[in-house]
C-alpha cells in the first residue's frame, strides 16, 4: 500500500485533477460503450419480433378478405 490515508490517495501527490480526470473519462466512456453494446442484441431481436408480428397481421388481413 503506497498511501497512508484516503485523503492522501485522493490527492495523488498533487496530480489529483489529471489522474482522476483520465480515469473518470476512461471508465465513463467504457460504461457508455458497454451499455449501448449490451442493449444492441435485444434491440435487434425486438425489431425482428415486431417485423414478424406485422407480417402476421398482414397475412391475417389478406386471409379475411
Amino acid at each position, binding site marked *: 500500500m503506497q498511501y497512508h490515508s484516503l485523503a492522501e490517495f485522493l490527492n495523488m501527490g498533487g496530480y489529483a485533477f489529471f489522474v482522476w480526470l*483520465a*480515469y473518470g473519462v*476512461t471508465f465513463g466512456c467504457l460504461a457508455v460503450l458497454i451499455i449501448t*453494446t*449490451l442493449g444492441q442484441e435485444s434491440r435487434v*431481436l425486438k425489431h425482428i419480433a415486431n417485423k414478424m*408480428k406485422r407480417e402476421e397481421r398482414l397475412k391475417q388481413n389478406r386471409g379475411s378478405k
Partner: protein
Amino acid sequence: MWKWLHPYADPQRAYQLSSKLLPWFSLLAISLIGIGTVWGLLFAPTDYQQGDSYRIIFIHVPAASMSMAAYMAMASAAFVGIVWQIKSADWMAAAIAPIGAVITFIALFTGAAWGKPMWGTWWVWDARLTSELVLLFLYLGVIALYASFEDKVLAARAAGILAIVGVINIPIIKYSVEWWSSLHQGSTIKITEKSAMPDSMLYPLLINILGFGLMIGALSLVRFKAEILARNSMRPWVRELAQAKGVK
C-alpha cells in the same frame, strides 16, 4: 489443415460459439482490469520523476496499444471477408470498428491528461499524437462508410477495402517515436530486452493491457452476435430466437 475452422463461418455456429466464449472473456476482462487498476493505483510505487501522475500509464498504454491491435484485428477480419468471401468475418470487422474508435479516443484523452502536467500542454502536434489522431479518423471513416450503404454486404466490402488501405498507418504510429525526435517518451515495454520499468510497475501494466484486450474481445463478441442477428433476420433460427426473447 484449416478444415475444422470452416463450420464456424456458418452464422448460427458462429453465434453459438460467441455465446459460449462470451462469459469467459467478460469474466477474465473484468477481473484483470479490476486487479490491474487497483494494483496500479494503490500498490505500485510512486515514480521518482513524474510523481503520482504517471499512474495514468495503467490505462493510457493499454488503450493506445489495444487501439492499434483492434485496428489490425479489424483489418484482418476485413481481409478474410474480402478474399474468402466469408460474411461472418465482415460482420466481425463491422463489430470491432466502433469499439476501436472509443479505445482510440480514450488513448488520446488520457494522453492529453498526462501531457498537461508533464509537458505543460494538453496537445502537441507531434508525430505519435498526430498519427494516433489519424487512426481515430480512420476508424470514423470506416464507421461512416459502413453506415452510408443501404446494402450491408456492399457496405462491409467497401469499409473493408478502406480498413485494409489504412493499415499503412499502423507502423507509422508504432515507430513514430523512433523515427522522429518526439516529445513522446519511447516505449516502456520491450519484448526482447529488459523493460525500462521495475517489475512492481510493469506487472499491473501488463495485466491491464491483457485486460483491455480481453474486454475488446468480449465487446466485439456481443456486437458480433447482434450483427449476426440483424443480418440474418429472415433465417428461421433467428426468428425462433426473436419470438422467444423479443416478445414480452
